[in-house]
């Protein structure tokens, strides 16, 4: 017993080291996307505030670019509005079709959007995350989809009252079902970790035809509405096995400059999930 005590005292610093290393590796391996403690991520209050302040300072640098993008988007929407207005006035002119088109109560839209601002991005390694300044107090919940003005950004991973962390396309844990615009075969979007502008769409059937520049859209998922742009095909990639085809996709969202994003709120999400989970 005495020897044991002496041993422990003599080697106490090594024992501390081993203990701390074990704690660290425990954190590494228990690092499961959906069960992590909010205290150890940038969704916690202190770190979130810190990044918010630093993001306010750097926002000035990007002001020009965001302004230009907003103007472009504005012009695009203006054009669309014009088109719809003409269309509406055309249909209303014809009294026969008016009744068919205008029902007496307009069904409420299934999706609504929560605008938020990016306050931190980390993408120097394979484990990339985005922190935004809206949280559960604003109605953000885990598993909600996130889009920018150009296309899909990612999925909400964790929400604290004022901040939330998003897992973007450019994270190897990210998966999303997708399809080419002119086809009905669905594949799965993933990221191979090589660069921030290219993702891969895999699990497409071998006979799938494509041209570079084809648009890649979301297909059915509980998280995103149908037909949201993910990116554009740039060419064929190396496939992991011979049964499927894999394509390189240039991601529509520019992760280097993304600032303003929309979080998608699906009114029927809980209902659909509950129903699907109730089946044994």
């Amino acid at each position, binding site marked *: 017993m005495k020897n044991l005590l002496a041993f422990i005292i003599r080697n106490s*610093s*090594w024992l501390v080291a081993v203990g*701390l290393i074990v704690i660290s*590796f425990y*954190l590494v391996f228990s*690092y499961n996307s959906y069960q992590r403690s909010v205290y150890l991520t940038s969704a916690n209050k202190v770190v979130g505030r810190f990044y918010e302040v630093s993001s306010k300072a750097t926002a000035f640098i990007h002001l020009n670019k965001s302004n230009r993008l907003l103007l472009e988007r504005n012009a695009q929407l203006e054009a669309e509005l014009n088109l719809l207005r003409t269309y509406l006035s055309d249909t209303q002119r014809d009294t026969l079709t008016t009744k068919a088109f205008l029902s007496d109560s307009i069904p409420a839209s299934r999706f609504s959007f929560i605008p938020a601002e990016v306050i931190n991005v980390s993408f120097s*390694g394979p*484990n990339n995350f985005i922190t935004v300044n809206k949280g559960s107090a604003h109605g953000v919940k885990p598993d909600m989809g996130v889009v920018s003005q150009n296309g899909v950004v990612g999925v909400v991973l964790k929400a604290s009252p004022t901040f939330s962390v998003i897992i973007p396309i450019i994270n190897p844990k990210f998966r999303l079902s997708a399809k080419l615009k002119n086809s009905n075969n669905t594949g799965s979007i993933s990221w191979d970790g090589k660069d*921030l502008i290219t993702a891969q769409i895999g699990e497409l059937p071998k006979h799938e035809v494509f041209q570079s520049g084809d648009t890649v859209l979301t297909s059915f998922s509980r998280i995103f509405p149908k037909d949201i742009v993910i990116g554009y095909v740039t060419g064929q990639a190396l496939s992991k096995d011979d049964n499927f085809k894999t394509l390189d996709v240039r991601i529509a969202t520019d992760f280097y400059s993304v600032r303003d994003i929309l979080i998608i709120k699906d009114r029927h999400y809980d209902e659909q999930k509950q129903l699907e989970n109730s089946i044994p």
Partner: protein
Amino acid sequence: MKAITIFREILLFVMLVLLQVLLLNRIAVFGLAVPILYIYFLIKLPYGRNRFYVIVSGFLLGIVIDIFLNTPGMNAAATTIVAALRNMMLSLFYPKNEYEDLVPGIHTSTAAFVKFTVMMVLLHQTLLFFIEAFTLFNFTSTLLRIGSSSVLTIVLILAMDSLSISREKSG
């Protein structure tokens, strides 16, 4: 340990964390090389600092970086291992020193300091990238990352150290 030394170390700790999370982690030269400078804190601890202190401060440094970068455990694990082996590596390059409060620096012993830095950085980066890449990605790309990031980090550390006014000389 004098209060002024402790104060200087805390200041260095905070500065390195801020530098790492606000600036350096957003740099990826050619999409590969990320400067990981915070290990400089462990290099600059005095010769005679006891192992317990080195290990605990290494763990704290790693876990703070982890919290900011959303990588629970990765930096903490790598930095704690490096901290545990630090005194051993130091004694490889520096003979037993009676000035316990002396800090390793490029002005006092260039060759030994360079070797010590290279070894610390290489070990740290190797551990870090392998812990990070545990399940994913091909081996060559990991090696390329380790190599390029180490070179960048070593150059940065040596540059930073030669810029700092040689406090060691007067000590």
